């Protein structure tokens, strides 16, 4: 996802609130945000099929709870929150369903990443992706937003409801852990 996600969507929001234009406006929302939200979800849930389901759920939830969107936050922020919640809920549900610990799930995710047919990065990108998979969920989120989306800490703070200072610390810790992972795996290879 690029920074294109964070847009000034005042015009779109206005149409969403106009009777008669609501559905058409929401279709435009889908066109505009499906790709960035897909990437957001896919970085947490490492296979296309689950990501596709979660992306659809995200838009259905947004559509059904459009009244709850008060417009004091950005539309993108609101959608981002829904997508992240859906993804984290899915991961927790899968852990429970398969009776996995966090470590087991981490290993399962790394295996899925290695077997992912919809991945065209180089070996370094794959290594980074696996390193990110070893991070705790919160740090993984913060790292993805900062590194891939190049999002500002203030925007991340709005989405995650965490202070800017805590987010900076999370990012710093994430980079440290990635560095350790890379060192360890480079030595093994």
């Amino acid at each position: 996802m690029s920074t294109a996600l964070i847009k000034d969507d005042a015009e779109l929001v206005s149409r969403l609130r106009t009777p008669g234009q609501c559905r058409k406006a929401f279709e435009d929302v889908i066109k505009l945000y499906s790709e960035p939200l897909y990437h957001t979800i896919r970085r947490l849930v490492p296979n296309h099929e689950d990501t596709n389901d979660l992306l659809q759920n995200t838009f259905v939830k947004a559509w059904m709870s459009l009244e709850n969107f008060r417009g004091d936050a950005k539309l993108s922020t609101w959608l981002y929150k829904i997508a992240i919640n859906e993804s984290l809920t899915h991961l927790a549900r899968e852990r429970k369903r398969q009776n996995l610990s966090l470590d087991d799930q981490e290993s399962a995710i790394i295996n899925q990443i290695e077997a992912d047919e919809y991945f065209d990065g180089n070996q370094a990108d794959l290594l980074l992706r696996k390193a990110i998979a070893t991070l705790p969920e919160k740090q993984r989120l913060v790292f993805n937003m900062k590194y891939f989306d190049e999002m500002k800490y203030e925007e991340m703070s709005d989405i995650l409801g965490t202070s800017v200072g805590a987010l900076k610390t999370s990012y710093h810790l994430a980079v440290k852990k990635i560095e350790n992972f890379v060192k360890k795996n480079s030595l093994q290879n």
Partner: protein
Amino acid sequence: MKEIKEIIPNSTHSDGIKVPEGYFEDFAARMSQILPERPELDVRKITPPRSIWQRVRPYAFMAAMFAGVWCMLKMFTMMSGVSTEISFDNDPVLSDAASNDIIVSEIIDDVSHYEFYEYCDYELLNADSLGLDIDTSKVSGLVIE
């Protein structure tokens, strides 16, 4: 803190994620079929009952506005220094009238005898001092009631 580029030099700053061919092109169309029908948003807001102040407020503002205009006019008048009081000095009609003997004698009749004598003495004094020839018998022959 190290940059990721330093940690993994060959990384491309991309997540390397790809999707099946035409996935995003079809996605919006597929989604619009999935989206359930729902009533349009009711954007009308329920108007809360108005308080007394809210009802009186326009009139209060209007009164304040008129008061403000009145104060401004008053201030401008004071600043301009023009007195609205009518006097012999600033009214040409009055000053003309005051210099007209007929008007003074016939209309302005509240001159007391004392003032009149004072005036006569002053005129005589000035006439003498100026060497004018004034028949004083006419003046002294006046009978005072």
